[in-house]
């Protein structure tokens, strides 16, 4: 039996007046996959997500969730996923327990089932001790946890997370990643948007890069990084007289073009393991270097690389 895709997005388009916010985007998400939508602010990630989750009407194209067209079977499609929005979509004025209870009831659970599920989720997300406190006293991390808990009331097979860690401190961010990994281990399909390459790298099986409303590239993190060109190496040659020999050695060893600006050299490493032999070679040739930096590809690089000449 052919397994149905968790999501099928076909030629999805959104126009706001004259502006095309999302421009003919198509992709599939398989069941059990973690799919990342990566792009800078205003690229159209959230708009895409809002259309997929039926919050926003599309100007064109279609979305199927587990085979159900969201335009025709909206309510059925909505019953199959949980959504955690970019801005805490919980009620500020009431407690965590009340939030969970109300959303459980709105999801169609009976009063008894709602009570039980609320208690389970409070425990699972370590919110039991703050369950009856006002959300105003909650930290950003607690709010996100509650937000995620609310999305999981019906144990949906598909979970949407819109920038799940934006604005969180590094520690809470790692905690959030762990929670997401746990969901993956339980077999959930996850679609998340992010503007951080490392986050997409850490969590996603496949990444779609979106820029100016267009899908620029889709692939695994490895494929994407290959396209970007790997790690950037920068250093300064202390003695100008050694410039030529240094460039020769590097070209030989890396097989890549070396950029030279004054006494500063930069090159791209396809693999970080190229670094040690190179430094060793330079040392043996008695070429002194300083100001060494090794830079992992940043999102800027992704976009520089992927969108060059396209806009």
């Amino acid at each position, binding site marked *: 039996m052919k397994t149905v895709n968790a999501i099928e997005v076909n030629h999805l388009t959104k126009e706001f007046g004259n502006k095309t916010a999302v421009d003919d985007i198509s992709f599939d998400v398989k069941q059990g996959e973690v799919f990342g939508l990566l792009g800078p602010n205003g690229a159209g990630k959230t708009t895409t997500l809002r259309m997929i989750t039926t919050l926003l009407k599309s100007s064109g194209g279609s979305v199927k969730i587990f085979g159900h067209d969201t335009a025709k079977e909206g309510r*059925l499609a909505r019953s199959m996923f949980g959504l955690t929005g970019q801005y805490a979509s919980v009620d500020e*004025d009431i407690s965590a327990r009340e939030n969970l209870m109300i959303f459980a*009831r709105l999801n169609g659970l009976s009063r008894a089932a709602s009570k039980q599920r609320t208690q389970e989720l409070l425990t699972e997300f370590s919110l039991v001790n703050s369950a009856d406190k006002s959300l105003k006293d909650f930290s950003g991390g607690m709010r996100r946890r509650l937000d995620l808990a609310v999305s999981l009331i019906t144990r949906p097979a598909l979970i949407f997370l819109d920038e799940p860690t934006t604005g969180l401190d590094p520690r809470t961010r790692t905690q959030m990643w762990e929670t997401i990994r746990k969901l993956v281990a339980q077999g959930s399909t996850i679609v998340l948007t992010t503007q951080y390459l490392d986050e997409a790298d850490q969590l996603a099986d496949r990444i779609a890069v979106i820029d100016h409303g267009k899908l620029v590239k889709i692939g695994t993190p490895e494929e994407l990084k290959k396209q970007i060109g790997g790690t950037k190496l920068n250093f300064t040659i202390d003695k100008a007289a050694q410039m030529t020999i240094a460039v020769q050695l590097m070209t030989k060893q890396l097989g890549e073009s070396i950029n030279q600006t004054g006494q500063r050299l930069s090159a791209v490493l396809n693999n970080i393991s190229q670094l040690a032999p190179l430094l060793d070679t330079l040392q043996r040739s008695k070429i002194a270097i300083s100001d060494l930096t090794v830079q992992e590809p940043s999102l800027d690089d992704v976009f520089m690389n992927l969108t060059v000449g396209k806009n």
Partner: protein
Amino acid sequence: MEVKTSRGNLIMNTATMAYRNLLRTFHNPDRFMDVIIQPVMFMLMFGYLFGGAIAGNVQNYLPTIVPGILIQTMLSASSGSGEQIREDLDSGVFDRFKSLPMAHIAPLAGQLFADILRLVIAAVVSLTTGYLMGWRPAAGLGWVVVVGLLAVFTGWAISWIFALLGLLAKNASTVSSFSLIVMLALSFLSNAFIPINTLSKTMKVIAYMNPITYVITAIRQILATGSWTHEAVLVLIFGIGIVAVFAPLTVWAYNRNN
């Protein structure tokens, strides 16, 4: 995979949403302050400041001003609907509501049902303040209750207009300032605080064009005569008319927004 196929139980969903709105209100008692402090303040200020000038003394002024302030309070309590709806729409919570497999209209319906409580509190506070100041309507307590219910119904009908406004407006503060202006204009350019025969010709025309004038007149008549008057029937029809016109419009605007 557990799929909850809700039958879209509109009544259940609406009840849950109304419960949510009430919870929010009880967690933030300041949401009640406008409907509690305002009628008390207006009743005391107007009663003791203008009572002598307008009616000879405070006691004689009370039959004029109690119905006036009752309706003014209903107006300002009902204007809260629009503000709340706009606030909700602008918050992230609303996205969540929309993404749930629930009855689509329930958030709006829940809001309008929860508003009834605000209106009831406002009516009780207004009438009680009047009583404490010495107001003893000839018709008796039974008719006071009838008048309270009529006022709440009128206020509820008007809250559909403000709900529509909330759906069409850009943000909550626009709704709030516009509502204040409407409330002040409607209540002051009527017979709420003064006998209408003291007005100039132009002002009389304006006051008679104001539907609030007829609501207040009807309430004064019920309280004076202790009977269900012709005017009271008109007020009831007027309220039903507003709901008949504005409820579909509000639902239309709500669906358009979504």
